[in-house]
């Protein structure tokens, strides 16, 4: 029962908050309060939302989708609109429920229809429904819907002046510049109001929800006023209640919500203002013929149109669309930053070096010998000794060369696309220009991603077209066939399946430098570099190899106990779930590295400490330096300044570093996390994770001058 109530409350609040692209409960509550300023409208709004929620829940739509409020916020607008425009009478409720049903149907259908194109519905369902109602009601008096007179439209309370109306009047006539009052009134127009007090409350809510969002509202407003001032389009300012809201919402949607906030997106938010004027005015005129208000139609059309326009770009470069919507410009932005810097595992197919041991790049990308024009993104590898030679004296037979006859591996999982295996190995110094690529294997990894190895030894290839290969499988031997004066391995990535296809610049996921000193991730090796696969430390790999179903119990020396279990969500992302406090920490765990991506929940939990301590671990025991993903979801006013400037300049960050010390029966990971503000460091947390051959043994934390010892036990609890 409690769960049910929670679900309805949170869904309803989201229906309110989502009007400003938010899931913030504070904003939701404030919007609900403001909607009640016009009691009739607020009430019908609430009733509509609840009715719609019950309807979609009963009909069995996805609960997670319903919870976002996307199915029902149009009903909210409809309800408020109904309450604002029509007087209560006997037929009011009948037509409201009919319109509400229509609105829900439209919402669900449009959401799915536009969703296919990755586009939002915004308030289109509401606008269409309301237009239909208006057109119908004005033609058929018999329907019984009575429009309020326009003079009463914005009266909050038609009764006798009360304390509340006095308060509203007080704010309406505040002794501040008229533009400030206009701003707040325009904000309140989103809920069909025209009240400064309402605007102020909503603004506070929006600010708590998102600093970026609020600054964009302001930018939209200022730009619109400025354009209006220049052109004189509306002689009495953009005071008409719906005008300002359209501009501000466009600015908000384009500048920070559907695009990743940056100075570019802000520039677009400004640039589209005159454009919005054009559409708004034209629509107003057009709809004027039918006596229909434009509502937020200009905003919807412009936002959807621009979004689709941006989506069609082939190479988005710096102006990026939000790929995963977090309903917060800050979160979208910080996630984007952290994703770009940290989550390369998801950006690239994981390719590993196509050989064992340490090989030297003898010709890199844009090489001087043959890696030119269409084939410039290729790598040639040889084996070199301490003296830089690639052969044993006398070096006159292919067998004298170190790399000859050495195993060549599949760079990634895939299906063998093509194999050539019959070409003779050349005599040293001669090349075979007829069969340029020599013995070659092309492996298909994904659509439009193939890797190719060439100049292999005759008859050494152990796979045939159609075979499934796993990363690291031996597929052939290095040879000297084709255009190869001395034995070497040619490797390239290409987007088409043919031998001779043009090359594609593509990084190797993880590799180490010659002495295993430096770990490189998602880079392209350069000429002269000697590289090898990272040497995996068995202790680390064993300890951090968490798979769904793993359960452990941690106990700290203050007697707190937490039980963590590893799960995988629908998308296959793995996370720790704390049974005691429901905290969740998402992580990635592959052959080379373990790292956390996000944390949700109680920041006083041990899981949060572990999230901080094991933020990133290289299985190759290389040192880690990383930045924590920033977070904007908590109510933390001290970070508001950072958020406000974040799209342009970030002056604070939390750094993570670790260092691994071997022990005789395991190893210790020393962790330090720091807060950097304007380059000034402050240590936040020190931790030591102790490992043995069974896995993690214990963790010591030192933070805020307190120490905490945590014991780690595995096994079913």
């Amino acid at each position, binding site marked *: 029962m409690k769960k049910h109530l929670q679900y309805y409350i949170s869904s309803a609040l989201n229906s309110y908050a989502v009007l400003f692209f938010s899931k913030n409960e504070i904003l939701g509550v404030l919007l609900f309060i403001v909607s009640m300023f016009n009691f009739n409208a607020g009430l019908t709004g609430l009733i509509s939302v609840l009715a719609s929620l019950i309807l979609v829940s009963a009909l069995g739509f996805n609960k997670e989708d319903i919870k976002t409020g996307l199915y029902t916020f149009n009903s909210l607008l409809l309800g408020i609109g109904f309450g604002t425009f029509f007087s209560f009478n006997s037929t009011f409720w009948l037509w409201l429920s009919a319109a509400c049903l229509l609105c829900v149907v439209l919402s669900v259908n449009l959401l799915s229809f536009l969703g296919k194109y990755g586009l939002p519905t915004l308030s289109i369902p509401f606008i269409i429904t309301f237009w239909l109602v208006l057109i119908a009601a004005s033609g058929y008096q018999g329907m019984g819907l009575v429009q309020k007179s326009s003079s009463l439209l914005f009266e909050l309370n038609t009764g006798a002046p009360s304390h509340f109306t006095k308060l509203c009047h007080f704010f309406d006539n505040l002794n501040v510049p008229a533009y400030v009052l206009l701003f707040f009134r325009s904000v309140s127009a989103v809920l069909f109001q025209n009240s400064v007090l309402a605007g102020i409350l909503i603004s506070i809510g929006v600010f708590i929800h998102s600093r970026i969002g609020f600054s964009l509202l302001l930018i939209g407003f200022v730009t619109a006023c400025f354009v209006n001032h220049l052109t004189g389009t509306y002689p009495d300012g953009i005071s008409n209640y719906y005008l300002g809201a359209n501009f501000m919402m466009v600015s908000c949607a384009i500048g920070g919500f559907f695009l990743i906030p940056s100075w570019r997106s802000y520039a677009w938010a400004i640039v589209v203002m005159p454009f919005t004027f054009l559409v708004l005015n034209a629509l107003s005129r057009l709809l004027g013929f039918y006596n229909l208000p434009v509502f937020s139609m200009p905003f919807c059309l412009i936002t959807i149109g621009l979004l689709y326009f941006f989506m069609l770009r082939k190479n988005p470069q710096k102006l990026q669309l939000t790929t995963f919507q977090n309903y917060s410009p800050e979160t979208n932005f910080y996630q984007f930053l952290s994703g770009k810097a940290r989550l390369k595992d998801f950006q690239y197919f994981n390719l590993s070096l196509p050989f*064992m041991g340490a090989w030297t790049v003898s010709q890199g990308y844009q090489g001087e010998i043959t890696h030119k024009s269409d084939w410039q993104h290729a790598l040639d590898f040889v084996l070199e000794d301490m003296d830089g030679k690639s052969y044993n004296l006398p070096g006159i037979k292919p067998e004298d060369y*170190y790399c000859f006859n050495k*195993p060549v591996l599949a760079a990634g999982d895939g299906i063998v696309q093509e194999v050539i295996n019959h070409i003779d190995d050349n005599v040293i110094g001669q090349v075979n220009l007829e069969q340029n690529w020599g013995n070659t294997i092309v492996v298909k990894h994904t659509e439009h991603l193939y890797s190719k190895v060439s100049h292999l030894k005759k008859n050494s290839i152990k796979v045939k077209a159609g075979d499934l290969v796993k990363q*690291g499988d031996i597929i052939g031997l290095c040879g000297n066939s084709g255009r190869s004066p001395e034995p070497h391995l040619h490797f390239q990535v290409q987007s088409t399946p043919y031998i001779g296809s043009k090359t594609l610049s593509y990084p190797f996921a993880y590799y180490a430098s010659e002495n295993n000193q430096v770990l490189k991730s998602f880079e392209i090796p350069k000429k002269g570099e000697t590289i090898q696969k990272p040497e995996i430390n068995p202790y680390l790999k064993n300890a951090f190899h968490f798979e769904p179903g793993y359960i452990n119990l941690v106990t700290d020396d203050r007697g707190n106990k937490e039980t963590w279990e590893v799960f995988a969500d629908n998308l296959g992302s793995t996370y720790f779930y704390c049974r005691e406090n429901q905290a969740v920490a998402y992580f990635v765990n592959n052959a080379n590295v373990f790292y956390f991506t996000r944390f949700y929940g109680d920041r006083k939990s041990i899981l949060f400490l572990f999230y901080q301590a094991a933020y990133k671990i290289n299985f190759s025991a290389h040192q880690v330096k990383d930045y924590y993903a920033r977070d904007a979801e908590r109510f933390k006013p001290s970070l508001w300044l950072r958020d406000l400037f974040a799209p342009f300049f970030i002056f604070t960050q939390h750094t993570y570093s670790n260092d691994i010390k071997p022990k005789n*029966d395991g190893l210790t990971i020393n962790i330090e996390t720091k807060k950097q503000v304007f380059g000034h460091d402050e240590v936040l947390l020190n931790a030591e994770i102790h490992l043995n051959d069974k896995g993690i043994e214990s963790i010591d934390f030192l933070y805020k001058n307190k120490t905490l010892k945590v014991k780690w036990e595995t096994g079913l609890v």
Partner: protein
Amino acid sequence: MKQKYERPTIRKMNTGLMNKFGTRTDFDPVEAIDGVPVKSLVEQYGSPVFVLSEKQIRRNYQAAVRSFKTRYPKVQFAWSYKTNYLNAVCRIFHQEGSWAEVVSGFEYHKALGNGVSGNQIIFNGPDKKEADLILAIENHSLIHIDHYDELYLLIDVCKRINKKAKVAIRVNFDTGVYPIWDRFGFNYENGQAWAAINKIVAAEHLELVGLHCHIGTFMLSTTAYSVAATKLCDLAMRCKTELQNPVQYLDLGGGFPSINTLKGAYLPGVDTVPSVEDFAEAITGTILNFGFAADELPLLILESGRVLIDDAGYLIGSVLANKRLSDGRRATILDFGINILFTSNWYDHKISVAKEAGQYTEETVLFGPLCMNIDVVRESITLPLLERGDQVVVHKVGAYNMTQWMQFINMRPAVVLIDMQGKSHQIRKPETLAYLEMMEEVPEYLIKKSSF
């Protein structure tokens, strides 16, 4: 310039067909080692003197690592201490990433002293004292059990100190090479090895982490290693499937030959000995094809010694005298013999002169300086005409000589390391009488002057 006096020599005239390979052996003088003149080495460190080339050690190590690591994903070398346990040498190998393979308590302590962490020391050999075992257990070293008595001792010790030991067993088997080295470890064919494995897995305080073999020394056949690898893999697979105790590593031991020529060999070692590449191909090919899952391939450990250091060592010595034997053969007496060149028992060492010599050569016997009949360095070698005081350079002496040499009649000489930059460092001082007498104790009654 005044020409060097060359003493007259008489050579028997041979008639008949010319030898189609010619008569010339190798007379190119070796005037410098890694750029350091032999003359200056002798001046600085005396004669005889052992010289080691750091460059060649690293070159050998890296070549061996390259041969294995380009063929197999998980490879670890462990430096065989007994081959040459001068600390400077060991540290070069440890710097390159090698673990330590020791066969006695003092070698174990030496490894610790060289900064090797306990879990990277492999403790082999039939003679492990109880105290050494306890130290090895506490340091989490890898203890390779050689016989049942050691196994029982280990079980007993572990129980007593209540600690777990990481162990492997040494396995011996028929690899087609005779004689079979069956005096070390547990036999595979008669089931002894499997029985020992079962005992270990059942023992509460022992953790079976690996399997070890060492099929012989100076092995001239790669097939023997394939056979050995197959048999070890078979045991490893059975450990996993039958005992649910997968082993982490297979230790194939050492035994790879250097390019020295064995006594009695018809052709020189350079031409007949298989290369490390060939052994790597045989061993890794066998393990990779045995059927382990890709992520369950065991770590491959190698304990090569000789092949990594033999050709990095030189011995410089001087001619003491020339004489003629009763049967008319020439004989040359050198200031080194089997006392410090132990390996002259095994090989026909290549010996060069240290300076330009004339075209005339003669066959001679090389004797050492001992007053013992057995002190023969080469029974017959063709060399240019040598004079008292001339220097000679013996090649490929890096393995075993600096550990098996004896202090007998003469003291042991200095050992010099030439570093990567061509600078020489004395890494072991020549012995002195004081050193020799350091451990001696004379009973009191022998010291008192007798009163007449």
